[in-house]
């Protein structure tokens, strides 16, 4: 059973899953609307219900309170609210917290400069290497020349893992031996992209917990070293977050931003039961947009983030 076998069977499963979810989804909203119809104030029971829905999706206490307060304000201002309006308001308020992509970039197009340098960072096991493989595939499909830099020289076989993705996608990889200096690998990768006149170079980095000061400093160093070749590099720093991570993701985003100025998030493993609601708080508090979502292990399982679809999924529980 190869990748494609898995891919197809997963799609079938998803359909089954959606059907199963319809029932529960309906019940949350019918409760909400029953409790609210004809009233000028949302009663506590409804808010508790809403709190449970949001918290169970990892939205977190602070952001949940913020959303609830916004709804209370709207309800007291607009008085009567029917089910449809409430539904709408709720979605709007949550969507408001999610940042739009700063550069207004759509799809997998790139700005004019070459090469475009993307550094991919995150804690251990979130799916950095897999995301890079899928991203490289998307750029290649868009007709761009891609170079991969295997700067995770620490984890056992990480270089081999990226190597397999480079073969799968059909793009060159720049690598050194395990244990070599990641900044040096990144430098080589950017150098190679320049001499090949490649469009985009994606640098994989080792997973690191954000509270390890030395490892975070290493990221800053990788960045500085690349800047010797391309002063604006990296043009993008993509922080990969595992959707099943709880409130710690907020701390991850803060610390990685401090070390490298994260420009966008990739939310992985959204094909599971986890909702990734913590991304709302991150996007709101740190002004970082979610750019990609990962929905499977197949080469095509990377999608551009869709705000509305994401907000809807919170209530499909």
């Amino acid at each position, binding site marked *: *059973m190869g*990748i494609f076998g*898995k891919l197809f*069977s*997963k799609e079938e*499963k998803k359909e089954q*899953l959606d059907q199963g979810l319809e029932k529960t989804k309906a019940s949350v909203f019918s409760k909400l609307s029953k409790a609210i119809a004809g009233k000028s104030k949302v009663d506590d029971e409804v808010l508790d219900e809403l709190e*449970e829905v949001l*918290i*169970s*999706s*990892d939205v*977190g*206490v602070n952001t949940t309170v913020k959303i609830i307060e916004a709804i209370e304000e709207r309800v007291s201002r607009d008085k009567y609210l029917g089910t449809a309006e409430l539904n709408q308001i709720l979605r709007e308020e949550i969507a408001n917290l999610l940042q739009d992509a700063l550069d207004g970039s759509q799809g997998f197009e790139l700005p004019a400069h070459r090469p475009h340098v993307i550094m991919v960072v995150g*804690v*251990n*096991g*979130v*799916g950095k290497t897999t995301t890079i*493989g899928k991203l490289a595939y998307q750029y290649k499909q868009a007709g761009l020349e891609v170079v991969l830099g295997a700067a995770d020289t*620490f*984890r*056992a*076989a*990480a270089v*081999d*893992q990226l*190597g*397999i*993705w480079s073969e*799968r996608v059909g793009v060159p990889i720049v690598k050194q031996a*395990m244990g070599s200096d990641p900044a040096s690998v990144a430098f080589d990768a950017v150098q190679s992209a320049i001499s090949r006149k490649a469009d985009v170079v994606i640098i994989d980095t080792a997973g690191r*917990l*954000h*509270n*390890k*000061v*030395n490892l975070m400093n290493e990221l800053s160093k990788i960045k500085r070293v690349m800047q010797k070749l391309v002063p604006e590099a990296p043009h993008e720093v993509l922080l990969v977050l*595992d*959707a*099943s*991570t*709880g*409130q*710690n*993701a907020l*701390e991850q985003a803060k610390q990685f931003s401090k070390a490298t100025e994260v420009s966008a998030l990739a939310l992985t*493993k959204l*094909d*599971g*039961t*986890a*909702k990734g609601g*913590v991304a709302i708080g991150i996007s709101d508090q740190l002004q970082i947009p979610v750019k990609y979502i990962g929905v499977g*292990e197949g080469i095509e399982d990377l999608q551009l983030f869709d705000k509305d679809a994401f907000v809807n999924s919170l209530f499909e529980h």
Partner: protein
Amino acid sequence: MFDNLQDKLDKAFHVLKGHGQITEVNVADTLKEIRRALVDADVSFKIAKEFTNTVKEKALGEKVLTSLKPGQVLTKVVHDEMARLMGGDAVDLNLEGKPSVILMAGLQGSGKTTHSGKLANHLKRKRTKKVLLVACDVYRPAAIDQLHVVGEQIGVEVFSDKENKNPVDIAEKAIAHAKQNGHNVVIVDTAGRLAIDQEMMTEIRNIHEAVKPQETLFVVDSMTGQDAVNTAKAFNDVLDYEGVILTKLDGDTRGGAALTIRTVVNKPIKFIGTGEKMDALDVFHPSRMADRILGMGDVVSLVERAQEQFDEDEARRVQKKIAKNQFDFDDFLGQISQIKKMGNVKDLMGMIPGMGKMMKNVDIDDDAFKGVEAIIQSMTKEERANPKLINGSRRQRIASGSGTSIQEVNQLMKQFSEMSKMMKMMQGGGAKKMANMMKGMGGRGPF
């Protein structure tokens, strides 16, 4: 690791401190604080709710007995309930089989391969087992290579078959191999899978049925949020696992998933992962973890780790030198390396009661001693043995040799002489004098 939760509980209890007794009214806000703290620590919403309800009932019942300090009463109730929720005493691995088989299961990226390695290393070194690692992740690119690299690092044989795409078959062959070659323990590493992926869940059920493991361990990331409820339950429904390994606890996650999982599936957490190195595996102690949550520190773990690394002969030798007032820089260097062997310094500090909060924003890592070591290593043998030799020009040389400044060398010299005095006093039982001296030293430098 639960420092953040601890902060919040501290705050919640603080509100109570002004009151004379626990009543429905004054406990309500505190309980809400506790519930929010728990939820913010990634404890499941429902479990946090149940938890605070139980605490409330118990706290209200106890108000008459100890009405003087409601904060303390509530602390105790919260602590006891937390400890109860996290389970009784530590539960050991069942290694009865011949060979005994351990099956590792979990989501993608939870740390199965790394912890297969750590567990193999633990069983090899601490239980003197002959371990075989089995690579059954036939999907993720280079997963098999990863296990081979890990196996090489710890000197444990790895069984794999790159041509074979059937994990059940690989696992069965591995066990036959283990029987022939006298391995006592077989650890089967499997691919990461989502709980809702029925095809993959069927696969692991088949592996489970084929190898009949004595221990199936569910490997879960301690940073997991509310989804821990679903995943822990779904894997348990399929595998009825024996225990849990909670990984990446060297991060700063509040780790509420530990509470959630323990409650939802009623299975013990058998190990915790505390770093990327192969020896960063600890036994989970529920009561200690509860102590830790409530700011009581984790002294027991600290003492145990110290004992494990403690070299008795060395200690006796050093003690003699101290008694004769001959403690020198070489001994000091030896002491530093012993401390380093005990593990991450920040971890160690975090285990000392009250230190967790203080250390929260302090950057201490394994390199904390680097400067000190560099200075000592830049001294000549004579200088190390006889610190009195070190005059101004020698200090200048040491500073440039170690890439530090003369001020840093001076500071070390001063601290060293204070420390030698202190040690001498400890020998003479002058605890009081020492306490005074400690005050005078006021937290300079790493020791």
